């Protein structure tokens, strides 16, 4: 838990002041989006909340719905 906060604080410190100083607002915006996503995922992981796996969804889509699959041998 602590590590999570530490790591994300570090990421913030490394990136944000530079962006603000150079007035790169667009970059800051995109950075914030991903930063928030990453932090949310990390938080969910640490708090043991189940994270939906995209591959399971994809597997479900391809195998069950579209029916394309190799025979299991």
């Amino acid at each position: 838990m602590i590590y999570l906060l530490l790591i994300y604080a570090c990421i913030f410190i490394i990136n944000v002041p530079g962006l603000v100083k150079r007035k790169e607002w667009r970059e800051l915006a995109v950075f914030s989006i991903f930063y928030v996503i990453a932090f949310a995922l990390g938080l969910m992981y640490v708090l043991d909340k189940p994270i939906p796996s995209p591959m399971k969804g994809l597997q479900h889509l391809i195998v069950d719905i579209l029916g394309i699959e190799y025979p299991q041998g």
Partner: protein
Amino acid sequence: MSIEKGKISSQQLLFLIAGFVHGSVLLIDFTVGITEHQTWMVILAGLVITVPVIVSYVALAKRFPGMNLVQINDMVYGRFLGKIISIYYIFFFMMTLSFNIRDVGELYITFLMQDTPFIFLLIVFTATCAFAVAKGVEVLARTSHLFVVTGLFAIISTFILLIDQMDFSNFLPLFELPFIKIFQGIHIVSVIPFGETVVFLMIMGCLNKTEHAVKNTLSGLLVGAVSLFIVAIRNTAVLGRTQTIWTSASFQSIRLINIGTVLTRMDFLIGIAQTILMFLKCSIFLYVTVVAISQLFGLKSYLPLVLPLAGIEVILAATVFQSPVDHATITQNAGIIYSVPLIFVFPPLSLLIAKIRGLPKPERGKGT
């Protein structure tokens, strides 16, 4: 216009591609369970099938000099459709990167350091990749020379050390397995080691001279393919029937090295070599993902996105599969199917459309 300010020479491209394909050496374990002693054939067939596709990648990059894949997609398919296709590619990059990071973690947790918590391994590894990416593609290209040499040395030396334990009759009978299995094997091999070179479409924009690009790309691919071939032959000759039951056939065959009771227990050395190669592969993937996303949003530089994306990837890698069993099953089925359009369909299609529409037009930015 381009995000990446650095330039690489085409010889460095050769080493990058060779190192990239090398990194997939342990990943052929996905096919070994299916194609058993005919894995070598499957590798050759996969190589033959992917070569024309890769030539089309280079042709596409030559046609649009200095531009990376996202820009090319925008130009060829128009703004809206191009962005959708780029998002598909980005999804592929992110997923595959998380698989590869997870592979490294699984390597450690199964064989080498079993008690270390999984997430720490992933964090350390990904942080190193992120550091490499932040330094830029030129640095990656320069260090790839060293990694490729290390990888080749490891592969050839293990082959030589195991020669006295090889039994070449393990390759017979030659054409035993049903064709559907061979087909699946070819599918896996052409996607996972060879097809993933589609990521280089993001990097070829940085070539400073494009004359020898085709030759160097194919040479790099060939070097990587030869290494895979040697590994497949070594595993089949040494292990024979048992190669399908081990989690990692390469590791097992290396454990059997027993020369003069001095050269034993080499498997950790191979673990180190493999980690280094996977590091190169993951760094390239991370670089490509970050640049693609930055390009998509029209940013001036990709640097700020490196760390958040690395953070997302770590969590993805830790959670996307539950165990190596999941990983193997899904990769052998859905994983390769969804990436087929990206590797085999879109680039040649883009080339065709570009030829028809006469792109790139010098004055006009996008199509008519």
